[in-house]
């Protein structure tokens, strides 16, 4: 050690230079300041423009709420990028923060694209378990995303519905990653039971790919409801069953044909042919802007049934039929309420 007086040390320390690690090229300071404040200026400009236009034309030209939704979306994406690996997912791989950051996209589809009208969402309990059962149609499971969006945005107590998907989707790249991240699980009785035991609202489509893969001429007609496995699971878990009728999902991809050999080759349940797919390539994957209605029916309580009721095949099938009839009737009712396919 070299002995130095306090005075000398202070002198040296003043001379010391703080060396920050240089990170390549940096823009000049005023430009950086402008960069930082640009979003604020832009928002102010849009606000002024909206006011001017309103004064000029006498009606709302720029919807500031929508602008704010876009801004919020961008902000949430930045937050996601910033958190790095410091977040927690549940045992199913569900990441609520990530899901909520992307729900803006689905909200836009929900409000502006398909103009979904939802009724009876209050039938979904604010807390505790519930088994939501819906009809399934429209080639790709957009109906699942819309039911999830409906419960999250319209319910007084926003909840994340956990849908069960066919295991084929879990083997697909990107699809499996997205489904897991947003809280979906495999359509396996074991998964249903575990989710219900965690007091989650669980969404099932008993029709499965039989429903999504049906032709356009069979629209609005429900397919067979499997062997009623969902009813047995609900009885065992003592969860109310909430039937849901979705109208509108049938028209998003009018499926006029099914190329079975191609589907078998690709390992898919079906290979749809619509007026736009596969002729227009990726453009054919854009769903049509049909008008949607979603109705949540009154819950069917199975809590009071005896424990052995789940093994009673007769009772299970009867309940399954009851749920199916409720959904089917709901579809016809909502079709009458809808003015037209695209209106």
């Amino acid at each position, binding site marked *: 050690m070299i002995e130095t007086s306090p005075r000398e040390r202070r002198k040296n320390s003043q001379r010391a230079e703080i060396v920050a690690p240089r990170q390549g090229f940096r823009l000049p300071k005023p430009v950086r300041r402008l960069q930082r404040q640009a979003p604020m200026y832009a928002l102010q400009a849009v606000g002024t423009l909206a006011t001017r236009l309103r004064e000029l034309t006498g009606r709302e030209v720029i919807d500031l709420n929508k602008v704010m939704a876009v801004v919020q979306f961008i902000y949430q994406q930045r937050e996601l990028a910033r958190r*790095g*690996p410091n*977040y*927690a*997912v549940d*045992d*199913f*791989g569900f*990441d609520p923060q990530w899901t909520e950051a992307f729900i803006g996209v689905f909200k836009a589809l929900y409000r502006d694209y398909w103009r979904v009208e939802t009724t009876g969402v209050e039938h979904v309990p604010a807390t505790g378990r519930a088994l939501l059962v819906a009809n399934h149609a429209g080639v790709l499971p957009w109906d699942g995303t819309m039911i999830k969006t409906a419960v999250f945005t319209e319910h007084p107590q926003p909840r994340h519905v956990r849908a069960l998907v066919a*295991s*084929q989707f*879990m*083997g*697909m*790249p*990107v*699809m*499996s*990653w997205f489904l*897991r*991240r947003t809280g979906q*699980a*495999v359509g*396996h009785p*074991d*998964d249903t039971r*575990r989710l219900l035991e965690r007091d989650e609202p669980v969404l099932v489509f008993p029709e499965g790919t039989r429903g999504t893969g049906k032709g356009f001429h069979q629209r609005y007609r429900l397919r067979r409801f499997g062997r009623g496995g969902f009813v047995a699971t609900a009885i065992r878990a003592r969860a109310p069953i909430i039937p849901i009728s979705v109208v509108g999902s049938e028209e998003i991809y009018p499926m006029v044909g099914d190329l079975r050999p191609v589907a078998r080759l690709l390992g898919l349940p079906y290979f749809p042919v619509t007026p736009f797919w596969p002729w227009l390539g990726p453009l054919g994957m854009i769903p049509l802007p049909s008008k949607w209605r979603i109705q949540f029916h009154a819950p069917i309580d199975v809590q009071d049934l005896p424990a052995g009721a789940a093994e009673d095949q007769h009772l299970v099938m009867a309940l399954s039929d009851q749920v199916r009839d409720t959904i089917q009737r709901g579809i016809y009712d909502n079709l009458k309420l809808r003015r037209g396919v695209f209106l």
Partner: protein
Amino acid sequence: MPPFKPRRVLITGVSNPFGAEVARRLAPQVHQLFGCDIADPVSALEGMDFVHADTRQPVIGKLIRQLRIDTVVHLAVSIDSPRDERAVHETDVIGTMNVLVGCAAPSSSVRRLVVKSSQAIYGAGPHDPSFFAEDSINFERSASGVTRDLLELEQLVSEFVLRSEAAVTVLRLGWRVTEGTSLARYLSLPVVPTFAGFDPRLQLLHEDDAVEAIVRATADHHPGVFNIAGDGVVLLSQAIGIMGGTAAPILPPFGRWLSRLGLRLSMGVDLPAHLADIVAFGSVMDTSRAQTELGWKPSHTSRQAMDALARGKQVELIEAPSPPQEYELQVYLQQRRRRELRLSN
């Protein structure tokens, strides 16, 4: 009848850090501790008699009988081995068979048997449920590699349970990420190639919890099969982030053997087939049975196990800076001397 307490215990496969830790924990609890392995033990342990023995030879049975062993802790089951598949099969299936034959002999004094198995027995695929329970195994299904070996192993064990009076505990240990395991090596790469479009859930087991489970199963009467793994899950991308690497989703998700070959040739990383499936689809076990019946509770979550590995990496970086080499110092001193000479001239 008073409850059985293990007195003369044999640990197979003791010569690795994991076996050594189990032996260290068991030594004070038992009367006489024996350990056997084909390699020398990693650390000397007072109170343990070490025997050079290979479970793949029938001699192991003789050893069990002549040492009058009453509890066998069978850890000589290799899951994550750099050796070839043939050797793994020999160790896992033939080795276990020899041990079981030794335990089943008519004059055998073995009353308790603890077998180490692995999460690898479940395999991983898109059609599996989100959680594997102990009874959800189909022993008839076709499998390959380690998964097939483990299925055969547990089949042998379950047959042994039927004809023997000894209490048998099978522990399916989750994936561990201590230094040197294939999974840890893979996750520690600076750029980690992953399967495009997949971000599976990983469930990890901390070494301490694994040891605790084995010790618990050995000390008390807990027959049955148990899943042993940490609480919670981490996503693959998260694990890579924790390790400070970058995920590169470049591997095609189909034809995984080709990706594995490519990894080995280009980066020197050996990703066994069962791990490739894990990295694509993930595998999570339900550990509730172990928590209720075995009374074992993981003290580390999957996330903490991952953090522990990351910390280990940092410590290594700080503690082992490369020292200046002899030659470089000489060059430096020479240059200095020359400069001084020039200045004085």
